[in-house]
């Protein structure tokens, strides 16, 4: 059940080639999907343009539910990119995984904690950046001592906890889903009887994983906006 990761060291950095591959594929799919569906833009939207506009409105609603559009409008593109990228990433590992010589190549890029924590750190980092940029360093710093000065350590811990939970929640959900899928596929499906027995739970779990993947991408986007709003808005 355990697969090796294709790790190479380059310039003193460890690269998991499977991750590199899947990140690239996920990015390419998101890019192609977005670009192809916005090739023929029209005032009267048709087909994929409708879908993309729906996604935009969906993210817009998420942002509006956490902060003023005046503040949050600048995060619109970030939000759409995140929700699309994470959704596509979550879906990639569902239909199959590819293992070559005991090395796992095809999987969800979000089933790796390094990837999800990178995204989470990016988000939290952006929240600090925009906190300083939009409220000024003074107001930003004072937020750490509100409502009481002795809350400071807790606030500091909160930032790290936010990062960790944001990344690990996504990773945990997707990784667990893939583990169970590979267990069902490889651990149970040995022989005709096993395959038949595994087919139904496999189907159920894949369906559930689609749901989980969609929900997780939504939650990630939602929490992104919540953290950003927390740092950016002055009234709460």
């Amino acid at each position, binding site marked *: *059940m355990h697969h090796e990761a294709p790790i190479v060291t380059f310039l003193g*950095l460890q*690269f998991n080639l499977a991750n590199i591959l899947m*990140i690239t594929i996920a990015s390419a799919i*998101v890019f192609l999907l977005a670009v192809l*569906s916005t090739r023929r*833009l029209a005032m009267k939207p048709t087909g994929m343009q409708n879908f*993309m*506009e729906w996604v*935009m409105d969906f993210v817009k609603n998420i942002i509006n539910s956490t902060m003023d559009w005046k503040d949050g409008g600048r995060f619109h593109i970030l939000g759409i990119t995140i929700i699309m990228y994470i959704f596509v990433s979550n879906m990639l590992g569902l239909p199959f995984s590819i293992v070559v010589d005991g090395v796992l190549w095809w999987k969800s890029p979000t089933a790796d904690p390094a990837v999800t924590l990178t995204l989470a750190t990016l988000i939290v980092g952006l929240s600090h950046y925009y906190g300083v940029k939009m409220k000024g360093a003074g107001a930003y710093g004072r937020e750490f001592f509100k409502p009481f000065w002795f809350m400071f350590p807790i606030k500091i811990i909160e930032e790290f906890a936010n990062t960790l939970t944001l990344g690990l929640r996504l990773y945990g959900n997707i990784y667990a889903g893939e583990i169970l899928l590979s267990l069902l596929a490889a651990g149970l499906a040995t022989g005709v009887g096993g395959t038949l027995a595994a087919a139904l739970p496999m189907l159920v779990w894949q369906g559930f994983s689609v749901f989980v993947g969609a929900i997780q991408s939504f939650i990630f986007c939602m929490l992104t906006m919540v953290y950003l709003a927390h740092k950016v808005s002055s009234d709460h």
Partner: protein
Amino acid sequence: MLTNSFVLGAAAAHSGVNWGDIIFQLFMFIILMVLLKIFAWGPLMGIMKQREDHVAGEISAAEQSRVEAKKLLEEQRSLLKEARSEAQGLIENAKKQGDIQREEIIAVARTEAERIKESAKLEIEQQKEKAVAAIREQVASLSVLIASKVIEKELNAADQDKLINEYIQEAGEKR
């Protein structure tokens, strides 16, 4: 074998952190975001904004044309009212004119008739006078004639003298 898979660290059975993956992911995500902004979200947002503007413009245009139509309708209505009142005035005027003309014609006719009547009366009077004069003349001559006949028959010399004297006297008195 199974337990290995569930251990977090065992997901990548190696030591250390994949810094390469982290950097790559960061890099890829930023590139993806920038590319999408340029090639997909930007144009899409543009067209959505454009549509929003278009709808807003159409609404305001419709509002404007509605106001304009209302104004025109009001204008037309007032024009119609004006025309109607004007027509009424014209009819009224014509009626009045007709009345006046009628009165005039009647008056003229009446005076004409009066005049004709007067002149006819005058004529009649003249004719009558003429006739009376003629009759009187005739009567005078006749009476003279009769008188002369009577006188011829019954007048003797004495009486004749007396009569002549009377006549002469009378004539003298008259003149």
